[in-house]
């Protein structure tokens, strides 16, 4: 199962801004585990992140699909 992952801000200290993930992740909880397998140092920041697809946030029970592009959204710090 291949997904595209886009990360922003502090997450870029742990991951490439955009990369392909080839792993089983049926929802965002599982996706989080797969990402921690890549870099466990991201635990704190990942725990405070939300996930989005296109223009909408998704819940932890949203079913991820092959070829989804998942956006990982750290807490806002605009303004």
């Amino acid at each position, binding site marked *: 199962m291949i997904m595209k992952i886009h990360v*922003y801000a*502090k997450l870029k200290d742990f991951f490439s801004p955009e990369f392909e993930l080839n792993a089983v992740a049926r929802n965002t909880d599982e996706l989080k585990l797969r990402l921690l397998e890549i870099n466990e140092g991201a635990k704190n920041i990942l725990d405070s992140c939300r996930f*989005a697809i296109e*223009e*909408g946030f998704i819940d932890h029970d949203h079913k991820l699909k092959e070829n989804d592009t998942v956006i990982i959204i*750290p*807490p*806002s*710090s605009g*303004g």
Partner: protein
Amino acid sequence: MIQSSSSPLPAEVNGSPLGTIQVISAKPLDIVDLLSQAHHPGAGAVVLFSGEVRDSNKGREVTCLEYESYVPLAVKIIHDILAEAREKWGLKVAIAQHRIGRLSIGESAVVVITTAAHRREAYEANQHIIHRIKHEVPIWKCEYFSDGGHQWGNNCNC
């Protein structure tokens, strides 16, 4: 009246024809131009907020800032915030624009303009909008310090 039900945006945003004002801008914010779009004959009160890059944060000297954003979602959320504020406070105009990219000291990172018949509504709505933009919109700040360090996401510039 026939309307496309698939259109995610109203025909008018920010009180201006759709698309006139980009809520996320990679170019320096043109406060004068934004203000010129905020006048309304029924509005007795115009409130403008500009959040600008300070030269220090908690004692550390700042040399510049960088903002990045997940733009499609940021645009949608800012439009929603403005529409809700326009409705709640009966605003004549509600405009917001947030800069992305690298900013120098003194540059404006975000501008919010509200106009209403009376000033209480214009002030309240303005504060509400900037609070929500800072806390809900996927925009992130990175501060670069004169000591060579940098830091993401310190949400206290203004």
